């Protein structure tokens, strides 16, 4: 299949001349003014290059370039300015808007064909490379994620649970973090960051690997001393993470570290290990806390049965599991049904 070449000029003669020169190598598309050009650029794929006149009625060439900047197509589509204009300022503007080359009318057709051919080849190569890099980045990031998940699942098994707890925490963290971000501008985060937080939440209990079986799997209440040891899983987790910083990218590492250390902090300062108060605790650590508590309450453990959903929510609201940020609880109420629907499926 031939590449497409878009010729934009209000004068038919100029379009015919250009079409004649390029028709053997390209499928030719023609536009009489900027509006038609923008239309075609927006609806046709596989345009290898644009030959653009500057001075046209209705919408001129500079405006076409501006639109292409706006929608980003200028990055992947080389635009040649073909113009009889002699104002240097106009040409400079075109260059500044991302035109790759300026060709004055009258042009030498053979030269023009070479110039266009070279640039099209270069762009093709670059676009291909970009795609290859993107694919590799995605593969790496998936690999990364699955390594982190593997690690977390191993720990969960030791905790006499399946990897399901970790998966549920991820799910609830994602739903709750998204809701918090939507409801409160001060906690707003881009989706890409929320995705990283979700990945990071996987490792919140990594430190449990350092807790003796006798405590971790004790079928009854922990003594005060045992509880103090249990609490160390937050700090131990961070120690483990500092040993394996290269398993994830820097941002994910930072989120993981923070969540690992602070997912047992409480809004009123009565949590551990640092006794942080209010928004001294990062919003992602606060979100994982709520997710962790909800999941712990609604799951059976060696020392307790599972509570039903209503009881669990009541216990969280009554502060039986510590005090939480009212805004996070508000968001929790707003999204918990959506989350329950999600896990039913």
């Amino acid at each position, binding site marked *: 299949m031939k590449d497409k070449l878009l010729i934009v000029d*209000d*004068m*038919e*003669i*100029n379009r*015919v*001349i250009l079409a*004649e*020169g390029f028709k053997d190598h390209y499928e030719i598309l023609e536009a009489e003014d900027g509006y038609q050009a923008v239309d075609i650029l927006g609806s046709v794929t596989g345009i290898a290059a644009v030959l653009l*006149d500057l*001075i046209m*009625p209705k919408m001129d060439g500079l405006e076409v370039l501006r639109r292409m900047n706006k929608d980003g197509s200028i990055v992947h589509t080389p635009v040649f300015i073909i*113009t*009889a*204009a*002699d*104002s240097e300022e106009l040409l400079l503007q075109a260059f500044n808007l991302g035109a790759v080359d300026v060709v004055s*009318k*009258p*042009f*030498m*057709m*053979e030269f023009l064909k070479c110039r266009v051919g070279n640039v099209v080849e270069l762009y093709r190569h670059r676009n291909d490379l970009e795609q290859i890099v993107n694919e590799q980045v995605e593969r790496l990031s998936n690999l990364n994620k699955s390594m982190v998940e593997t690690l977390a699942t191993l720990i969960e098994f030791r905790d006499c649970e399946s990897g399901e707890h970790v998966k549920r925490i991820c799910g609830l963290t994602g739903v709750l973090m998204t809701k918090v971000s939507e409801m409160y501008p001060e906690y707003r985060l881009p989706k890409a960051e929320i995705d990283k937080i979700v990945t990071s939440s996987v490792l919140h209990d990594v430190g449990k690997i350092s807790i003796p079986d006798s405590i971790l799997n004790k079928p009854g209440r922990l003594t005060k001393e045992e509880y103090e040891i249990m609490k160390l899983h937050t700090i131990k987790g961070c120690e483990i993470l500092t040993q394996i910083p290269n398993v994830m990218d820097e941002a994910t590492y930072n989120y993981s570290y923070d969540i690992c250390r602070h997912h047992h902090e409480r809004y009123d300062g009565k949590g551990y290990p640092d006794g942080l108060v209010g928004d001294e605790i990062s919003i992602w650590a606060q979100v994982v806390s709520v997710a962790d508590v909800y999941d712990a309450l609604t799951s059976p453990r060696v020392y307790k049965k599972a509570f039903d959903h209503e009881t669990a929510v009541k216990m969280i609201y009554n502060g039986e599991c510590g005090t939480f940020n009212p805004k996070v609880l508000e968001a929790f109420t707003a999204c918990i049904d959506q989350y329950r629907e999600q896990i039913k499926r």
Partner: protein
Amino acid sequence: MSDMLSELKDLGVNVEEGMKRLMNNEALYVKMLGKFLDAVGNSNVMACFESGDLDAAVSKAHNLKGVTGNLSITPLYKGYTDVVALLRAEKPDEARQVLEDLLPVQEKIVECIKK
């Protein structure tokens, strides 16, 4: 080469160069000369001068400059290049003078193509 094209050559049109731009397709070149007549008909620069619409004058002269350049109608290309430059330099009287000198040349070329 047809009589018309040799006659145009005598009038200063660089026929070889113009055809080369059309991959030496003589028939297409002749057809485009026909289109050029339409372009001249649609772009009466002098009328714009007379009505005082200098913006229209510069845009029409600009169009003819591009087309005559691409078809290598060299005398007209040079003339319209000057007209555009003088208008952009805000020298309308001088631009009009160049155009007045240019129109008889254009008339001869147009007549020759019409035949």
